[in-house]
């Protein structure tokens, strides 16, 4: 074997004064970065195996461990950075596509951080959410053109909708890409907090049918795990056309992750690769999409909203218009920072557009065309906190999906190694040694806590703006001001510059 030329990415620092050689780190590292030297009777580490998932750091009873960036520096070069060079070493060694996990980590502008919210001062009163009612109730689905009442009672038949206590849903992450315990955590948290989680394209495990009332079932190009029972098990259906992390290509679950439970849930043989085709082979036009939407509505007796998820790409607004006209009840737009269990590195980092611009463009377009009421818009990708949620709503979203943030609440430390199946936090893995590390009782509580915490914060911010119902903020771009943005950006976002 020749030299692979790679140098460690991280340095494991062990404080020998604190280390008690208890071997907790040895037992917890699926990458085998720590081992016990029986001859020396002490624990030793191999830097090159470390992925900085920090499992050992967190678990170490004496806090003897820390992880640093490996201090080895390449000669400074703005173009040829260490990371760029190492990528070439890897490909020169393997001849393969570079694969990665989680979302785009490149330093593209983060528009959320260039938009600021308004607050009431003197001329209009702010509202204290602890003393006054504050409504976050959100409905996802088509809105009737008009409401008719007879003798004080609503007589208009309402289309099927999802009712949310908070405008935050857990985004699609398939069983296979993440563990059953992760699914259980999200399902239970959804039920607890009055919102929804999304199965992703891998079907719904039998144990989770009990959470169907809070479940969005996804139908993707591979049709994994899809049958009438599945379609009817959820509260809504989402057709996945694309994903922000890898627009234009389908999902790919390696056979090693397809154990019997995944196999049964996906309805594919154990150990086989689950490769979703890049396109839906029955969809080549908006008309075809219309057919699929109505096939699914037919299959579920028109009782469930059917949505369509697309990646935010260049002509997203026009596509969204087509989807609305094709009969979808909601559109999910997934920005270029959206996460993934596995994606080709170059696609993840270079394809798609920022969600903030896409969201604003879609909302504007649908309004301009007078069809905004036909669909709800769910904004997905890069929501990090409650103020991002509020900004997304003000830009025009009905609700937001959170994926990465949800996984972080379950313990994810963003090491971006989901694709290896060796997630030390028991999330993006099917290894039974690792999946049990995520106790769904704890996971559900933590995910629910996150939603609840954000709910409180959203109410605070709404109150500050003098708004007592989330509905009054939707598309209310007057509540936003841009900083450090070009006129063009401001124009697309449909917001004024700070000070205007």
């Amino acid at each position, binding site marked *: 074997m020749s030299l692979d030329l790679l140098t460690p990415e991280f340095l494991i620092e062990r404080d020998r004064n604190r280390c008690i*050689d208890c*071997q907790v780190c040895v037992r*917890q590292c699926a990458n085998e970065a720590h081992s016990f030297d029986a001859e020396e009777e002490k624990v030793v580490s191999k830097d090159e195996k470390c992925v900085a998932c920090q499992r050992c750091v967190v678990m170490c*009873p004496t806090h003897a461990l820390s992880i640093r960036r490996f201090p080895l520096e390449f000669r400074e070069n703005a173009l040829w950075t260490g990371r760029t060079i190492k990528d070439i070493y890897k490909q020169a060694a393997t001849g393969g596509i570079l694969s990665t996990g989680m979302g785009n980590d490149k330093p593209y502008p983060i528009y959320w951080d260039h938009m600021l919210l308004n607050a009431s001062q003197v001329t209009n009163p702010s509202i204290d959410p602890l003393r006054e009612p504050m409504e976050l109730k959100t409905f996802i689905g088509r809105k009737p053109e008009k409401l008719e009442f007879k003798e004080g009672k609503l007589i208009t038949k309402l289309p099927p909708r999802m009712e949310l206590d908070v405008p935050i849903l857990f985004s699609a992450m398939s069983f296979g890409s993440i563990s059953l315990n992760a699914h259980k955590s999200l399902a239970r948290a959804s039920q607890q907090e009055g919102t929804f989680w999304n199965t992703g394209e891998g079907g719904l495990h039998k144990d989770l049918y009990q959470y169907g009332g809070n479940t969005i079932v996804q139908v993707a190009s591979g049709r994994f795990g899809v049958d009438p029972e599945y379609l009817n098990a959820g509260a809504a259906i989402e057709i996945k056309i694309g994903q922000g992390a890898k627009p234009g290509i389908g999902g790919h679950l390696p056979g090693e992750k397809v154990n019997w439970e995944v196999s049964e849930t996906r309805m594919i043989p154990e150990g086989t690769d689950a490769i979703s085709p890049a396109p839906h082979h029955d969809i080549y036009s908006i008309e075809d999409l219309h057919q699929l939407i109505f096939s699914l509505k037919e299959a579920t007796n028109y009782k469930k909203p059917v949505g369509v998820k697309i990646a935010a790409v260049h002509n997203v607004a026009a596509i969204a218009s087509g989807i609305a006209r094709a009969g979808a009840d909601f559109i999910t737009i997934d920005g270029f920072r959206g996460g993934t269990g596995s994606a080709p590195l170059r696609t993840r980092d270079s394809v798609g557009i920022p969600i903030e611009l896409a969201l604003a463009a879609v909302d504007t377009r649908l309004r301009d065309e007078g069809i905004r009421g036909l669909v709800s818009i769910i904004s997905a990708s890069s929501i990090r906190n409650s103020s991002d949620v509020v900004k997304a709503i003000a830009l025009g979203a009905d609700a937001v999906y959170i994926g990465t943030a949800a996984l972080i609440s379950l313990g994810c430390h963003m090491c971006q190694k989901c694709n290896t199946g060796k997630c030390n936090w028991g999330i993006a893995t099917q290894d039974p040694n690792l999946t*049990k*590390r995520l*106790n769904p009782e*704890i996971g559900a509580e933590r995910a629910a806590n996150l939603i609840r915490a954000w709910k409180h914060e959203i109410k605070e911010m709404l109150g500050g703006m003098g708004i007592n119902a989330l509905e009054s903020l939707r598309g209310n771009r007057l509540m936003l001001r841009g900083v450090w943005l070009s006129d063009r950006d401001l124009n697309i976002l449909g917001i004024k510059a700070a000070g205007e």
Partner: protein
Amino acid sequence: MKRVYAKEEYCVGCRVCEVHCIVAHSDYKNDIVKAFKKQNPRPLPRILVEENRPISFALQCRHCEDAPCTKACITGAMQKDPETGVVTNEESRCVGCWTCILACPYGAISRNEQGKKVASKCDLCSDLGYTPACVKNCPNNALVFEER
């Protein structure tokens, strides 16, 4: 009575319970590093993690209703407290005859190799007056302390 129960589906085999058991039964109850580095001989853990990957679970004295160890003990050192139900070994009276090891159907009593002559077993951290250290420090709630 309240006992420690293991949920093996969530036991991650880290053995943090053993570490904290050692500390809780050392002279340095609030200092893990000292408990491990200063105390010689180091106390043995009174909780045992059994492992056959991917299955693992922690096992310790069940504080049996009908504790066979207390009936087998030749010195009277092993006693079940009639009020709390906790089975404890009075170490000064224990002579290390290991009849309790012979009697315990859980294999939950171990020889204290360093001290040679004292059987070591879970005392539910009775002298600490709080939730047993193993339960308190289990990172994944795979151990619970409850009435069943």
